[in-house]
Structure formats: C-alpha cells, structure tokens
C-alpha cells in the first residue's frame, strides 16, 4: 500500500474517529449515570439524522443550524426516557433489563423510521462543503472536516462541563458513588435525568453531522452499535477520555483498512479489537483507574 | 500444624496498598481471630486467600499446597470455605436448594442426577437442623430474616465439608442471642476438628471465642498471640485508638 494511500486512509479514519469520540462520550455518560447500556444511542443518532434531513428538505434550513432545534428536543426526550422508563426497572436486574429496554427502543425507532421514511438511502449535500482541501497531498473533504470540528468542539464542551462546572462535579459524584452523592445533598434523580439528556443531545449533534457526511438508512444503526461498544470496551468503561482515545485509534485503523482491504474488513476490525480486549484486558486499555468491568 | 500461610502477600488498589507484604501463619484446630481497624486490609486478605482477587505479589498456601491465583472454586475444593461480610445467599432459590448448590468434588454422573439425591438432601437437612432453620426448608432465601440468612449462609458453607472456615464478620448486625448461638456453633464445630479464621470488630465476641488472634494495621500484621496478650499490647492499642 502506497504511502499516500495510507495517509489518505489514516486522515479519513481520524476524521471519522472524531464523530465516534463524540458518540461514545454519550454512551459513557449513560453507563456512568445509570449503569445503562444504551443500545438505542445509534438509533437516536439516525433519528436525529432523519430529523435534520427532513427539516432541511422542508424548510431549507442549513442542516447544521437544525442543531438549534434538535438539541433541546433530544435533551428533553433523554430526561423523559430516564425518568419514565429506565428508573422503573428493578435494580437487581438493571444491567440485563436496561439493555433489553433500550434494545426495544432501538427497534421502535428503526421500525418507525422504516415506515415513515422507507428504506432508501438519504443524504444531504451542502453547497459549501462539496469540495476538499489538500494538505500534504492528502485530500480532506470539507464536509468531514466540518463534522470533525463540530464533534471535537462538542466533546471538549462536555468534557469541560464535567470537569469544571458544579453540575459536572455533581454528575461525577453521582457516577462514582450515588449514595454518598445523595448524602451530601445532590439530587441524584435530577442529575441522572440531565445526564441522560446530555447523552441524547450528543446524539442530536452527531445526527446533524452524520446527515451531511454519509448516506444513511434505518437499519444502519446496528453497525454503529457494534463499533461504539467496541470503542468503549477498548477504551475502558466509564472513562470519557479513554473512549475518545480508543475512538480516534480505532477510527484511524478502520480508515487505513478501508482503503486497503475494503469496507467489510474495516467493519470487522472493531469486533476483533472487542474480543481481543475481552480476552486480554476486560477493563479496557485507556480508562485508568475509573475504568471498571460491566 | 500450619493450615494456612501467606508469604509477602501484596495487593494495591490504585495508590492504596491494602495488603502490604503479609507473611503470616495460622495453625489448625484453633479458632483464629483477625482484627484491626477499618481499612487495615482484613477483607482484602480474605479475598486474596480465597481467590476472589489476584495478588500483585506473594503466595498463599493452604494445607501446605500453593493456591496462589487459583480460581475460587478450586480453592474451595481443597477444603476451604468462607462467609461474606454482607451476607450472601441465593435469593430466589429455596433454603434447601441453597444448601444443595454447595459442591464437593463431584463426578459427572452425580451432576445430572436429580436434586433429590437422598444422601445429599439428608446431609443438608442435618445441617439445617443444626443451625436451627430446618423448618424453613422450602422458603425462598430472600424471605428469610437477616439472622436466618446468616445461619443459612453458614450452613451452606458447611455442606462442602471444609476443614478451614473463614468467617467475615459473623456477628455483624446480629442480635445478642443469635451471636451467642453462632459462637456456640463455632465452638462445637471446632471441637469436631474444624479450623476457623474469624474477622470481627466485636471485641467481646473475638476475645471470648478465639484462642489465637492476629492484629492487622494498614495492611500488615502488627501483633499476634492469645486474646489476653493482644489486649495488653501497646501497638494494638495505638492502632485502634490512633494515638
């Protein structure tokens, strides 16, 4: 494989990794906040993509501007899901039942999208993002650059929220020790709801990005769930930074494999890494002390 | 003779060294006690010895055999049993089924025989009668009171016929009458030849029951001897009172 091909694959992979990082940070939040494996996260991602698509088609709004509408909506939906559904599950079988419940949500969304929007591929092209910039002989498509930029900014924003703000500290406290958090006066129910809401808000942003960079169809979310799960397992559960590192790493590898061996093999490497991590180091590689086993 | 000993056993969690190069011996036929302030590493020590966590360094020997990093069920088969600090039973199984899960080494044939294997059921009932909850045989474990669950947990451990029994805070959260009963039970079982290692915070319980006590502080043993010797040891007083 030639050097330029390698560099091209690497660059594209890294750009994709940015989106993966944003999405896996959402997943990490759900798991940390409620110990819920939100299998429906990619489904919501695609729901957001469809919403962006239809808003753009119907109102002519710039797809990236639709974020202004979708983010608050998804945020509210996230709170609703946590308050009305997830909190109803019995704690002793939470791990199992939450997967099944979110799985049901994913089915609902996929089915609903299929009925309303049919299975044909959709995609948005924006006039200002159809070309590419060349950097050191590597072509970087502008739409993917924009997508990476938005994802990166959002990711950093979330990271800062978690680290710096009072709410972020309350959230982290609730993640680490819910009982202790309650004892110091944190309203853990509210915190959990908001944590979930933030998670879904990242899906809204990711969806807008997805709408402009790649074609999509309802059943595609299953591919994403495998990739995202692999990323957070490799990165280490409960660690937002770990997931980001793993996302960039795996995205880069996927990119290189894609240009050399094709899309199928590119998809398979995620599963390879997933199984290898489970066999060798189930608590993940980049999570540090926060990382734990499911 | 030595029934359990460890050599330089070490385990750290992040920056906290829970068990710090512990070399210690416990003799058989005794009721050994293991005491120490909170965070001194007692439960971690139990978890290391029973294989539930792997040590960072060091070795564990049971009956002179090295069992370091063995999986827990293999260690159980060498004749070791343990109870948990927070009493653990199988909530949705009946009391009797809870007893029948405990396995000594079984042959494949015995695995697929019905649960009603008479010899084992008889044995289970005998133990249940001995601890006093035989009338609850068909109740689901989660419907038992806390004290009854503690007794069930102990009885189930005994089903596997262990020669060394590790008790993690057997008197924790239990009323005085039941504490007395547990102490009597331990004494009787000890008289029948079983060795005990008891972690406890209840000093009366430990001092009245145990014939040999080891004191842990900050991950290592700081004193050992008879209850009387321990109670007058300056290092022990310092560790507990933090002077």
């Amino acid at each position: 494989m030639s050097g330029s091909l390698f560099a091209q694959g690497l660059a594209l992979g890294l750009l994709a990794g940015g989106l993966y990082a944003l999405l896996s940070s959402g997943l990490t939040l759900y798991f940390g906040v409620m110990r819920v494996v939100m299998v429906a996260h990619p489904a919501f991602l695609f729901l957001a993509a469809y919403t962006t698509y239809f808003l753009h088609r119907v109102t002519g709004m710039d797809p990236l501007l639709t974020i202004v509408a979708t983010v608050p909506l998804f945020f509210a939906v996230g709170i609703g899901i946590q308050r009305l559904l997830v909190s109803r599950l019995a704690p002793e079988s939470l791990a199992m039942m939450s997967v099944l419940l979110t799985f049901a949500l994913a089915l609902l969304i996929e089915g609903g999208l299929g009925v309303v929007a049919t299975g044909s591929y959709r995609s948005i092209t924006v006039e200002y993002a159809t070309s590419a910039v060349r950097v050191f002989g590597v072509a970087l498509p502008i739409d993917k650059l924009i997508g990476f930029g938005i994802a990166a900014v959002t990711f950093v924003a979330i990271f800062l929220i978690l680290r710096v703000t009072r709410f972020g500290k309350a959230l982290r406290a609730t993640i680490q020790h819910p009982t202790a958090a309650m004892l110091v006066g944190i309203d853990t129910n509210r915190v959990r709801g908001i944590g979930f809401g933030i998670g879904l808000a990242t899906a809204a942003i990711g969806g807008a990005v997805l709408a402009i960079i790649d074609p999509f169809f309802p059943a595609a979310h299953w591919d994403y769930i495998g990739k995202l799960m692999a990323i957070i397992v490799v990165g280490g559960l409960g660690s937002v930074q770990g997931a980001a590192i793993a996302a960039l790493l795996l995205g880069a590898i996927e990119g290189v494999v894609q240009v050399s061996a094709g899309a199928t093999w590119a998809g398979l490497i995620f599963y390879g890494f997933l199984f290898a991590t489970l066999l060798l180091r189930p608590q993940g590689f980049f999570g540090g002390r926060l990382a734990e086993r499911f | 003779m030595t029934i359990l000993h460890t050599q330089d056993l070490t385990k750290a969690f992040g920056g906290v060294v829970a068990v710090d190069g512990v070399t210690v011996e416990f003799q058989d036929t005794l009721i050994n006690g293991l005491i120490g302030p909170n965070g001194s590493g007692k439960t971690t020590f139990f978890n290391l010895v029973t294989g539930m966590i792997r040590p960072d360094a060091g070795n564990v020997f049971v009956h002179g055999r090295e069992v370091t990093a063995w999986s827990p069920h293999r260690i159980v088969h060498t004749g070791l049993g343990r109870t948990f600090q927070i009493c653990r039973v199988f909530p949705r199984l009946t009391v009797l089924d809870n007893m029948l899960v405990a396995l000594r080494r079984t042959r494949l044939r015995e695995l697929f025989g019905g649960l009603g294997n008479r010899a084992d059921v008889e044995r289970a009932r005998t133990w249940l009668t001995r601890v006093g909850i035989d009338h609850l045989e068909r109740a689901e474990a989660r419907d038992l009171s806390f004290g009854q669950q503690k007794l069930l947990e102990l009885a189930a451990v005994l089903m596997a016929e262990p020669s060394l029994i590790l008790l993690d805070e057997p008197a924790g959260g239990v009323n005085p009458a039941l504490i007395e009963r547990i102490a009597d039970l331990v004494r009787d079982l000890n008289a029948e030849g079983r060795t005990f290692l008891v972690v406890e915070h209840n000093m009366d319980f430990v001092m009245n029951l145990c014939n040999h006590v080891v004191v842990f502080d900050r991950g290592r043993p700081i004193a050992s001897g008879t209850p009387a010797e321990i109670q007058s040891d300056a290092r022990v007083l310092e560790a507990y009172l933090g002077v």
Partner: protein
Amino acid sequence: MPNASDLMTGAAARRAAIVVAAAVLLVYPWIAPNSYLRYAGVLVVMYAVLATSWNLVGGFTGYVSLGHAAFFGLGAYGTGILIIDLAVPHVLALAISTVGVVVFAVVVGLAAVRVRGASFVIVSIALVTMMSLIAQDARELTGGSSGLRVPPISADLDRTSNHLLFFNLFAALLFLAALTWWFIDRSRFGAGLKAIREDEDKAEALGVPTTAYKVAVFALSAGFTGVAGGLYGMWFGNLDPIFLFSIIVGANMVIMALLGGVRHLFGPTVGALIVVPASEYFLARFGETQIHIVFSGVLLGIVVLFMPDGIIPKVRVLLRRFGPVSSSIREETQQEFRDRQGVGA
C-alpha cells in the same frame, strides 16, 4: 400454604394441559385447512425450539444472548454448504454441521463468558453482526447477498408433505430440547446454573466451577439452535444471510422466552405461540413495511417494563385469585415460632 387437594388439582390441571397440547401438536399438520397455515405451524414450532434452546442459557444462568441467531445461521449454512458443495447426504450434513456449531460455541463461549451482564449482551450482538457481515461478503462460499438454494431432502416431496415432515421434525426437536431443559432444571448442574444467575461470585465461593458450567450450557444451547438452523435450511430451501444472521430473529427468541416466562419449561413455547402468529398477522396485513419491527419493539418494551417474569406467573396469579386463600411463608414461621417458644429462630 395451599392444601393438599389444591396441589393435586394444580398438578393434574397442568398435566392435562400438557397432554391436550401434545395432542393438538400431533394432529395440527393434518387438520390445518391450507398450505399457509401449515407453513405457519412449522414456523411456530421452529421458533418454539429456538426460544427453548435460548432459554437453556438465558433462563438458567441469566446471561442474555441477543445474538443467538449466529448459531442458527451457522447451522443453516453449515448444513447447506455441506449438501451443496460437498454432496454430503442430508442427515449426515446436519450432524457434522451441528458438531461444528458446538465446537464454535465452545471457543466463542470461552471468551464471551469472561464478561457478565450487559457486556455479554454486547458481545453476543457483536458476534451475530460480525457473522452477518462475513456471510454477505463471502460470495463464493455463501452466495453472498443473493443467497443459497438448498436442494430438498427428496425429489418427490411436494409442498404439503414437506411441511408435514418438517413440522414433525421440529416437534421432535422441541421435545428433545424441552426434555433437556427439564433434566437440567432438576439436576445439580441446573442448581449450579441458577446459583450463577443469583450470585455468580458466591456460587464460585461455594465450589461451583462457573466457567465450565457456563460454557457447557452455552454450547448445549448453541447445538440445539444449530440443528434448528440446519432443519430450516432443508425445509425452506432458501438461505438468505440477512435473515439467518438477523438480530431481529435473535431478539424474537428473547422476546418469546421472556413473554412466556423464562423460569418455566413451556414458557418459551407459549411465547412462540403468541408472537409468531401475531407477527405473521402483521406481515400479512401490512406487507413488507417495517411495522413488524415496531411491533417487536413495543412488545419487548411492555414485557420488560410490566412483566419481566413472563405471562405464566401473571396468569397463575389471576387463577389463584379464584382459589382459596393461602397463607404466606412468614405467617407460617411466626406460627411455628410461637409453637417453638424459645427454641430456635
């Protein structure tokens, strides 16, 4: 405590129900009025087998595998490829393919059971998605996305006799699977599995070799599922990688078992009896749209939120409302405590 006569009528009623059901099962293919209903009957029994096999793992150990379709597909493709490419006679192909599935399950199982709970679910999803990708891609072997045609077991088998034959084959397989479940339920192996479900670390601390147990039951379950896959290939004739390695099929297995009740021998069968006709109805009514996926999602959600123990316990509670009042265990022990004043408790 329900009195003796209640117990007897309860057990007798259950036995009668089983006998009636078995009788219906035996005559159904003969009395079904048209070919479609015969086809649907085979489908019901096949899903009953799949759900019961899944329940060997899910019901006993509590490990939820959403990717069991991986073994279904492997069994179908294994059998199909042996018949088509290597001209192996049908029955032998089924046997060899099943052995392959079991071996595969042992290997995968050893890795998969190193994690628990939700992680295990993810691994199972990853497994089936992976197989789906591979199957669609390996054109020379599997015919890729256009599928594979498996020749029928005998040239002069018309549609009716085909349905009849496989109805009975699946029914026999269901009987075997149920028998296996029943045996395990009453054995020490089963007690160990249930202990794993209740408290895996505690089970290990009592001497149960948890990894060996989990892999064993995983392989057993995969074996039955693989046989069902092979039979499906021979019956349906057409192998399509998207259906065979479908997460939806795997999800349906779980839904059926959960709906019927995972702690009961015929829970999964009851689940299949409810879900399969319902989804066939949806398919007939609304055609090829994705409404049946919505239906699956709604059903799964309802079961998880409102009846995680399945429909059978709910029905029992309903029936018990019409029976004599029974006393609780607690009352009984209180009574006995008073009788045994000062002794024990």
